[in-house]
């Protein structure tokens, strides 16, 4: 177990270094001059050069990268070019919000996807299967942006059921999480349907029925945990999709999260913030996948963590 954790940690570090390099390269490959962005279009060339020098942006790229990583190792994420606040302060305020939103979206995905998938499998090729499959696919094909706007207009603005945007508690979370979840639920619906259909065909299900077990118990005690295994695996990948969705949803709902911060930092070429948000997302994905693997071993006794 310890060896397993050490190996996973090693892998995670390699992944994070790789991601940091690629992100660093990309921020410099895009057209635009961070120094010029900081001082504004009317500052003189001299001022721009001064800022460039102060920030170390005149050094070769690999030196800049090594400097950045050196500071990172000391827990220093640097200062935002944009508002001169420590990056960590910016992120810390928003991290919890985003984690809540991503988690909420995931819960909604499961809350729709799992029952829908079960219905589809249990009523395979019957009307309810077609209805539920259609709904899931329909939800998937809605643009998240548009769906979010619709919900804001109808449910928040007109009906006043939920706040229009911002944060402040579970009520603020509902609409953005539902938007995220509706769009992602179709994957789980299909996955659960396919895997449950496969499980229902297995010999051990026939054994359960041969023991006189009624259908409800066959489905939930004997089949469900086997059928859910692929969904757990998928959840690991889904985290990154969710984070992608979060960037957009936070814009739509004016939700102060890391996604919104990332979006603004890209617009402003605020390199330290870009780096920090991307690395944070990567850490999140790595940790989530680790949790998923542990969960996987927990559900399936054939899997051992080694």
């Amino acid at each position, binding site marked *: 177990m310890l060896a397993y954790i050490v190996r996973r940690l090693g892998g995670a570090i390699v992944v994070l270094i790789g991601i940091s390099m690629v992100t660093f390269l990309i921020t410099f490959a895009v057209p635009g001059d961070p120094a010029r962005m900081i001082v504004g279009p009317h500052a003189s060339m001299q001022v721009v050069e001064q800022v460039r020098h102060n920030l170390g942006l005149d050094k070769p790229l690999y030196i800049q990268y090594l400097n950045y990583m050196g500071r990172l190792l000391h827990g220093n994420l640097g200062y935002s070019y944009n508002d001169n606040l420590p990056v960590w302060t910016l992120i810390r305020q928003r991290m919890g919000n985003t984690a809540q939103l991503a988690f909420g979206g995931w819960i909604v995905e499961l809350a729709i996807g799992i029952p829908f998938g079960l219905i589809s499998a249990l009523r395979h090729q019957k009307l309810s299967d077609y209805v539920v499959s259609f709904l899931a696919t329909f939800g998937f094909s809605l643009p998240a942006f548009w769906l979010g706007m619709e919900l804001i207009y109808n449910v928040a603005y007109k009906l006043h059921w939920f706040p229009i945007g911002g944060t402040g508690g579970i009520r603020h979370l509902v609409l953005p999480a539902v938007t995220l979840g509706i769009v992602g639920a179709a994957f789980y619906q299909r996955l659960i349907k396919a895997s449950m259909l496969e499980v229902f065909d*297995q*010999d*051990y299900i*026939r*054994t*359960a*029925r*041969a*023991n*006189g*077990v*009624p259908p409800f118990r066959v489905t939930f*005690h*004997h089949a469900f*945990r*086997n059928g859910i295994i692929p969904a757990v695996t998928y959840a690991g990948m889904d985290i990154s999709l969710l984070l992608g969705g979060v960037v957009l949803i936070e814009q739509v709902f004016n939700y102060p999260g890391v996604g919104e911060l990332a979006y603004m930092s890209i617009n402003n070429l605020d390199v330290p913030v870009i780096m920090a948000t991307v690395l944070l997302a990567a850490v999140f994905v790595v940790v989530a996948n680790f949790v998923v693997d542990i969960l996987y071993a927990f*559900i*399936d*006794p*054939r899997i051992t963590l080694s």
Partner: protein
Amino acid sequence: MTLQATDTLLNISNLSISFKSDDGWIRAVQDVNLQMAPGETVGLVGESGCGKSVTSLAIMGLLPRTARVEGEISLQGRNLTTLTDKELRRVRGNDVSMIFQEPMTSLNPILRIGDQIAEPLRMHAHLTSRQMSERVKELLAQVGIPNPARVMQEYPHQLSGGMRQRVMIAMAMACKPKLLIADEPTTALDVTVQAQILDLLRKLQEESGMSLLLITHDLGVVAEMCSRVTVMYAGKVVEECPVDDLYYEPEHPYTQGLLGSLPDLDKRERLRPIPGQVPPLWAMPPGCRFAPRCSRAMDICHSTEPQLLDVEPNHRVSCWLHQKGGTVS
């Protein structure tokens, strides 16, 4: 000596089973009759695809919904084919249980052995959880599993094929069934393990007095275990007799072929195929289904089906060689 109705545990009469296909109903089993007395071991033999498993699944009510069952299957005078799902569930795993050919896949990979063996008890017996776990331990010991307390906590992948089949047997015995159906219980196992499992089945049967319907390819197993045997070919019964008759006076050319292809009964070899192939379900010959492969086929064999008739008390054969209309050559 024919079986009296009161002596009959299981009475299958005129059982036909069809499956729905794109071209309509395809009949896999036709007019099968089979009786079993309490405590009796009956063998059901025949080549692959002749309908042995389908027949046993029909007894359990476990055929897929695409199957149609006609005829009657009664257990102690109660017709199982007309029971509701709920009534049938009370029979399964309780009065009748079944073990399958594939011990590797017949157990649930994510449930503990003890939990799985307890399942029929949970369904049919009213026990406290302490009593249940005692009973599970007892069952595991009864089927010869060393260290039951530990094995209860294990998962199927931690056990060998032979051990898993023992677990399946323990599960099937949990509610002391009146009838155990064993569908090729040893086919997937090593030869030495096969013998152990058969010994175990025989021991359990003697102890409990249950009836055993043993489905097998293996005539050596039949000789050792069974008192009577039913031979099926292409979905129909072709011969039915006491096991001694089968070896000393087989009457049906198919049965003779099966035996002829078995060099030494004690060596327990698998059936070596008779030349030719079983006709597919959708293209059954109009006469005797064995006619295309039968070296003794006559004209009438190709046009008219023979009936299953007594040639001696307790010995029935379906062959024109043994009934009026055929000419014995």
